[in-house]
């Protein structure tokens, strides 16, 4: 039995979900060594060293110009070509956004189903039995695949990876033939998110504006304070509904759930759906002109006043304290 694992890698390292993919592939192969495939511009970049003790016998590096950046259809064609050559019984990918995308292309090319987000898999008469996560994590489904080649992706952080005593895998480069159409899809540019690098989920301080900001321009004072505190800018649903900020900035149950040390909510009334997104905050400071705004019930500190007066004053005070 040949089991092939598709790996994501960067700077000579293989990421966690891919290692977990190897772990599931090994268990599928009954503990035997597996084969792995990566895509890179040239095989010098293949993460051979990182795979020492991983249980990968041979690392196949699909090399060529199309693989200089993330190019899912081209990678899929390389995997299909390799799997065909090796006579692979199963192809496993990491259940990340990219892993799922690549494996979806593989499924489409082979006209076979892909079982996504698996936590266990084993061969079963003429196919495979997989256990996979469904319904946003509330249910495990046991499903049967009746296909000669099993295609699946592995739910991240659900299958533990344990290293073996094996050495580095053998490296075999190959140059797959990539169709013109597949070569067309690749990354041409990268644009950073508007928060300037600090993501809402990771930020220690989040400064959010609500309807009280009044407009897109009204967020200038919010951005200023967030910049001074090294924090990220968030907003409420009313703001994204009004089109003042992108949905990626939204804090709330239907947006991003945050857990900063300090959450500064400015001009936000504090609807339940918003509070559900910031309940992980250690401290909440509410700035609101409405003394009866619901957010005051959950806030640790509150300033009653217009955010357009309070925030500039706050920023000025911080600057003054720092310069003195």
């Amino acid at each position: 039995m040949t089991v092939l694992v598709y790996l994501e890698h960067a700077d000579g390292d293989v990421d966690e979900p891919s290692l977990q993919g190897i772990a599931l592939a090994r268990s599928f192969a009954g503990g035997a060594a597996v084969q792995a495939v990566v895509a890179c511009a040239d095989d010098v970049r293949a993460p051979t060293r990182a795979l020492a003790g991983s249980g990968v016998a041979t690392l196949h590096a699909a090399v060529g110009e199309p693989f200089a950046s993330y190019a899912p259809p081209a990678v899929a064609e390389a995997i299909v070509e390799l799997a065909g050559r090796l006579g692979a019984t199963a192809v496993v990918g990491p259940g990340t956004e990219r892993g799922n995308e690549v494996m979806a292309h593989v499924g489409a090319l082979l006209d076979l189903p892909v079982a996504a987000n698996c936590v266990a898999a084993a061969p079963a008469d003429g196919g495979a039995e997989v256990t996979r996560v469904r319904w946003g994590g509330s249910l495990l489904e046991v499903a049967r695949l009746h296909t000669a080649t099993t295609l699946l992706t592995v739910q991240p952080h659900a299958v533990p990876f344990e290293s073996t005593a094996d050495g580095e895998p053998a490296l075999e480069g190959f140059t797959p033939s990539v169709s013109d159409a597949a070569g067309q899809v690749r990354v041409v540019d990268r644009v950073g998110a508007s928060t300037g690098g600090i993501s809402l989920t990771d930020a220690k301080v989040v400064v959010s504006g609500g309807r009280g900001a009044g407009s897109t321009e009204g967020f200038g004072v919010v951005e200023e304070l967030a910049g001074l505190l090294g924090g990220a800018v968030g907003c409420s649903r009313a703001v994204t509904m009004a089109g003042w900020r992108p949905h990626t900035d939204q804090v709330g149950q239907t947006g991003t759930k945050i857990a900063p040390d300090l959450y500064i909510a400015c001009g936000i009334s504090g609807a339940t759906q918003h509070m559900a997104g910031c309940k992980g905050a250690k401290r909440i400071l509410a700035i609101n002109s409405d003394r009866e705004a619901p957010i005051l019930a959950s806030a640790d500190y509150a300033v009653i006043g217009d955010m357009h007066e309070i925030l500039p004053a706050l920023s000025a005070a911080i600057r003054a304290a720092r310069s003195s």
Partner: protein
Amino acid sequence: MSTAASAVALLIVLSVAGGLFARRAHLLYRIVRLGKPVDRSGEVGRRVRNEATDVLGQRKLLQRLGPGLVHAFIFWGFVVLLPTIVMALLGAVDPDWTLPWLGHQGWFFLLVDVFCVLVLVGVVSAFLIRKVQRPPRFEGSHLGEADLILGLIALIVTTLLLWHASQIALGINEWPADWSPVSNAISTLMSQGEWLETRERIFVWAHVLTILGFLVYLPYSKHLHIATAGLNVWFGRTRRRGRLEPLDFEVEDEAALRLGSGTLVDMTWKQMLDTLSCTECGRCQDACPAWATGKALSPKLLVMGLRDRLFEEGPSVLAGGEASPLVPGAVTDDVVWDCVTCGACVRECPVSIEHVDHIVDLRRHLVMVESRFPSEAGTMLRDVGRSSNPWGKAQGERASWADGLDVRVLEPGDPPPDVLYWVGCAASFDERARESARATATLLLRAGLDVAILGPRESCTGDPARRMGDEYTFQAQAQQNVATLDEAGATRIVTSCPHCFNTIGNEYGDFGGSYEVVHHTELLAELLRDGRLEAPGGDAEITYHDSCYLARHNDVVGAPREIVSRIGKPLEMARNGKRTFCCGAGGAHMWMEERGAAINEERVREAAATGAETLAVACPFCTMMLDDGVKQAGAGMRVADVSVLLAEALDGGR
């Protein structure tokens, strides 16, 4: 042409037309028989009544008086003129043949003349509506097909009048001609002569052939509703509108396990019949809040999309072929998720199509089989199951709204209260909605009722999960809550939330829970009526917004208005009562991002147009949505629950 030759000719055209009709009808019948079972037997009395009111009485069509009358004229004309088809078939064979007895009754021919004119008036008005008025409800309908059908109807009636007139002119009429004012008048215009007999033959045959042509065309067109609408009304749901059909997860045979509608073979036979009954009149589209705010969903286009799929794939599936996914093939994902399950379409539909059930079944498949739904709603589904409320709040805080109030929290083993107050998640946790919980509890205690709450033992009813299509999570919640309520010995339950009201009152019966459930507005109105609460009166102008799940799904319209009229001056919005317009939160939309224009703002603009200073509501979700809408639209109104307004009035205002 001799009688024998005519008979042979008629026999030939009858068998050709009848054969073509039967072949198509048989195919449609077999497609509908592909459908999954759903029980629509029983309650014959109710079904007979529906036929009488909705079909013969044209009740739903007459909700729009103008177009309703136009249709009623044509429909009633069709019914009255049915015997003339037999007369024409007989007359086509031999000019002297007609129906015994009826063919000689003057009054019948008076009716025929009158209804011929009414049908023509109807057809002309329908043309005017379609060509001059051009209401937006026809957007997306097959307009050319409708023109052809109207033309055929006009031709049938005109040839009938001309035939009768030529009979009178010939003097071969078997009924007193005086009874036929219209045919008689036309006959005087007909020149006498040898051509008259030929013309009589031409008219009767033209009449018969048009009818047979119509018969053949019928099952290929949207006008099929002539044959299907009556059936669809008969098999229409007798359950309450807000009560969804439960799925059976415990079926023995796994092949019979139905998880909503993935392909056409998953649809129930009633759903298939629904699609064959649609005439594309667009009354549903006109009432739909999603369509009104520029979203992808139109209930009409949804049903048409499913019908087209039935016609495309039905024959091949019957031959053993595979059916392809309904979403996104027949309808797009957006269409499925735009629905707020407000039921306005179902209420408007003259032929008992159940759009909401279609939507929920499509959602069930997407959620439970494909895990495909707006990702932002995933947290709600998980929190309902894990935290017992859709916001993931700590259950321990569920009763903290009642701090400082003397409300009994029912512990296991406590004697059951007279009235169990089921607060609901929104009124328990949302700061804004908690006001109504406090007001309601205060009022009930003030009236001296023995009332208690379940506190942390209360759990989400599962309504948002069910409307999202997550029947599995819903049923888990339902079973748990029924067990809690039964243990508590609850008999009479009052709810703040119309969604809890609907779920516990209408849907828990399917899971063994049987209780008398009232909404807080009903109970408060009852206490006012009995004098256990005294209404102080007032002159503030208040407009009341009906919650869909209270008014439309459950017919509670009077009680909240009774309260409003006791504390202020009521002003009605254009869309009120059972024809209310959704706030935008239904169908789990409280936990989804809205695309396009905002439904709540649309509703707030309508409320503001009344000039009222207060917008009264009776649902915590309406409270949140309309409160937001007021802020977004910059309308200077106060949004408050009816219970809050009543409590304030009793305290002498705020």
